[in-house]
């Protein structure tokens, strides 16, 4: 990813917009009693487009903003999401993305990883002696499945938003080559064949 000031501004807007959308919309809706978590998918897609450094920095920023807005201890979400972004970036640097299914599958897997990570951070900080319901597993699995579909949409959307900065993405389509016509030229009437732009 080629980082220029306009692209940086787009990245900041994406991060801020994503966090606000998560807190104001996704966290407050429930499908099958589970709220989708869009932030790990957002970080994964940014990591896939920008590599390890962009993924890690965006993950850290998303986590920090999230903790600030939730008035939670700073650093917990940053730690988890920076690891998520870094892993996504690492995947991009090590492997080719051959199939359009790869980004959503990666969003699904890394969302599961991130949700486990949030739990691990909470355990590290002391989960007290509260019992953990088995419904947590259902919650984690459903969040991951939601992330598959959300990842698809986010990948498509961010590819448009960040297109000028993407190295692999050409900014304009190459001129299409016309196939030569198989029909014989009707030269008997003396007409010259048409050519594009003539």
């Amino acid at each position, binding site marked *: 990813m080629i980082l220029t000031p306009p692209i940086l501004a787009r990245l900041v807007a994406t991060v801020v917009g994503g966090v*606000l*959308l*998560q*807190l*104001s*919309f*996704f*966290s*407050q*809706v*429930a*499908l*099958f*009693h589970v*709220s989708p*978590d869009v*932030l790990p998918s957002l970080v994964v897609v940014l990591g896939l487009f920008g590599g*390890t*450094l962009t993924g*890690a*920095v965006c993950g*850290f920023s998303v*986590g*920090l*903003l*999230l*903790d*600030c*807005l*939730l*008035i*939670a*201890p*700073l*650093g*917990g979400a*940053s*730690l988890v999401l*920076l690891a998520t972004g*870094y892993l996504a970036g690492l995947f991009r640097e090590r492997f080719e993305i051959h199939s359009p299914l790869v980004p959503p599958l990666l969003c699904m897997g890394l969302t599961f990883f991130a*949700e486990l990570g*949030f*739990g691990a*951070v*909470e355990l590290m*900080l002391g*989960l*007290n*002696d*509260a*019992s*953990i*319901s*088995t*419904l*947590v597993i259902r*919650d*984690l699995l459903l*969040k991951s499945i939601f992330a598959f579909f959300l990842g698809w949409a986010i990948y498509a959307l961010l590819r448009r938003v960040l297109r000028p900065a993407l190295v692999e993405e050409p900014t304009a389509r190459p001129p299409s080559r016309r196939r030569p016509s198989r029909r014989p030229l009707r030269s008997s009437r003396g007409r010259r064949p048409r050519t594009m732009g003539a």
Partner: protein
Amino acid sequence: MYRKQVRRRRAVLALLIVGSFALLSVTYGQGSDGVQRGVATIFSPIQSVADRALKPARDLVNWFDETFDAKGKNARLHAELEEAREQAVGVKAALAENAQLRKLVGLDESGAIPSGYDALTARVITRSPTVWFSDVTVDVGSGDGVEVGNPVVSGDGLVGHVAAVTGGSAKVTLIADHSSAVAAKIVPNGAQGILKPSVGDPGDMILEYLDTEKIVGKGQSVVTSGWRGEGIESRYPPNLPIGKVVEAALTEQEAQHQVHVEPFADLRNLDVVQVLTGGSRE
């Protein structure tokens, strides 16, 4: 050149990791610091606008979820309605008696809000996205008189307490959060215990450390006990409704001294709550 890039990348990564741990160490258990207060103050109006703007879309998505849910609940609600009708007669008599007793002791409150408290209506503007935390942010803060520790209720019952506060917003830790523990008692038999959540399932809470001599039955109500001892007191005022006992197996009561409680408040779908401010338990 490539090595230099790799080295720089590693340095940034190490810096971010160390920064995260440092922030975690510094801010854990501190409530809210200056940075958070500043960011929360800046974003609070934006969040409020976003919350209102996205409400129709949220309602639409939630409508689908609730429609699936409603089909299953229909039969159960019919049975509960029958039961409630039978109880209503008894409740009316108790209310009349209660009104007379209140007059006798000079109380003129309706009883919905504990004496000495003012109810401040607040809108939920954000909600924690992970299953491990049960926090919401409301659009009232220290500027409105909200203080850390204030109880928060909804129309149905106890919701949680204020854990941190900024100028225009406050973080409410719900009773379903793993850090929550509410001193509660069962009415009418008076058995007391500590109500703790089951992480990941806000509809199932566990009332622990019950007195085994008092047998608890399914359907009995649970309210805050509001105890006070030498220099310490419960965070919540007494008699705030919390929920009802949904599972009270005798074996579990005798062996583990606990029963299962379903909260009255729908902790997953909170829209408007009331912060009880200015409470004086004197």
